[in-house]
């Protein structure tokens, strides 16, 4: 279970996230939605301890990732929003490093690489954006984590491998993994998630089940996508 309570993290320019509370149960997949700069990445990085938060209580399976980062990161799989990896190394080398660091075997990483049609011998600088993203995804999954924090996981992936990713995430959720994944738009994740939270200018403005969200869209006689756009600017919606 992932729990974020009253998280506040402000940058020097005053932007950041304020009083964010999000909870993801075992086996639940929650989407964190919002436009650029709404605070999705800041929330995720704060949870991982990369950013120093001024307030808030964080936990993953009752473990505080700030005070006990080793135990927490053993069970968390994290995918950065803009996955940058050393260009002179191959995916295989990175998998070996991560597997050693996490004390797990390489088998599952190789299985995932096969599922994603990834050439693991190529150095990262020779890979396309999509294949770099596959490498980063596998790095976040290879230890079969109990909690997944995925920042824009579909970025750069073609529709076929997006489908592969969501199948894998469904398997993880079915096995009890709590998943928090961010996206800009709801249509990308609506087939996968159980619930969604919407961020706007550093604050959470909506947090309900997908069912409740769709019901709200129905009541307003609009599509889920336009209902999502309505959170931000009605003029941007389109029929």
């Amino acid at each position, binding site marked *: 279970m992932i729990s974020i309570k009253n998280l506040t993290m402000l940058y020097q320019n005053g932007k950041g996230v304020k009083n964010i509370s999000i909870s993801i149960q075992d086996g639940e997949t929650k989407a964190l939605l919002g436009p650029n700069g709404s605070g999705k990445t800041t929330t995720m990085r704060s949870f991982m301890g990369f950013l120093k938060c001024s307030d808030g209580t964080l936990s993953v399976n009752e473990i505080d990732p700030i005070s006990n980062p080793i135990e927490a990161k053993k069970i968390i799989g*994290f995918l*950065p929003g803009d996955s940058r990896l050393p260009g002179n190394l191959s995916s295989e080398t990175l998998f070996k490093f991560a597997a050693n*660091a*996490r004390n797990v075997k390489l088998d599952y990483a190789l299985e995932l690489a096969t599922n994603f049609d990834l050439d693991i011998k190529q150095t990262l600088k020779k890979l396309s954006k999509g294949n770099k993203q596959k490498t980063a995804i596998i790095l*976040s999954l290879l230890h079969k984590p109990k909690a997944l924090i995925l920042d824009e996981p579909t970025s750069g992936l073609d529709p076929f491998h997006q489908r592969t990713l969501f199948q894998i995430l469904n398997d993880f959720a079915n096995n009890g993994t709590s998943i928090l994944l961010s996206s800009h738009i709801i249509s990308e994740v609506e087939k996968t998630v159980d619930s969604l939270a919407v961020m706007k200018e550093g604050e959470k403005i909506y947090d309900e089940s997908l069912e409740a969200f769709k019901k709200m869209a129905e009541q307003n006689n609009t599509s889920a996508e336009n209902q999502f756009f309505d959170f931000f600017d009605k003029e941007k919606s389109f029929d």
Partner: protein
Amino acid sequence: MIKFLATYGWYIIISSQRWISTWTLAPGVYLMIIPLAFGNSNLKENLIDGQKNALETSGFSDNSVVLNAFGISNWDSIWSLEGLVSGYLMNLFMPLLIAVCIIGLMNKIGAKSEEDGTFEFVASLPFTRTMIFSAQAIILIGLGMLIPFVWVNLIFIMTLFVDASLNYSSLVQSVIQSALGGVSFAAFGFAIGAYTGKSSLSWAAGVGLLAMEWLSGMLAQTNEIFEFVKEWISSFGAYNNPYVNGLDFADLSLVIFKILLFLIIGFWGYRDRSLNL
């Protein structure tokens, strides 16, 4: 902890292998020209003795500020192979090279990797900041000492094939003090990079300290403050030609103390700041 050091150390080495291999071999190969020049009587006469005469004629040898600027403490001795290696190369050139090499390397795995985002992957692994900083500090000191050893060994190997000689144990003592000096500048750059997460500040701090101590040594005879810095603070000032005089406990202690102090400062800032992602 040992498994972590082996795993993360391996990652650091392979992700920076081009930088490390280039800096380990290239300066050493270039520096092999020194024993070659001294071992060839024609070259020595034309190049080295010719330079000496020309510089003496120009008044260079009488200008202590200029001599200090080049790290030359004894004009007559640097015209021998032993004097040049121990009195010029290790006094000025080697600490400078080590500082640049190691600041660059530490930035690649530290502050610069935060800026370019490659560190986010490492930060997501089950390591603490203390573990990461400790491993980086070990790499800093380990490679900062190992790389100049490779250089001087290449120089020494060349002396075995030409008519020039160096005393190996004296050479080792010299390189220990000289490399520690370079590591002290790199440690300051690394510490500021770790404290701030900014590679530009890391370079400014490391090279800035080097420049300040170099200028203090150059101008020591003109000003009491510079004299004080040279005598009591400077890593250049702590190099008192161990090739001739042996290693000095006070000189070694000063440089080791500076390295430890800088590392403590760096860790203090690094331990719970936001990463510069």
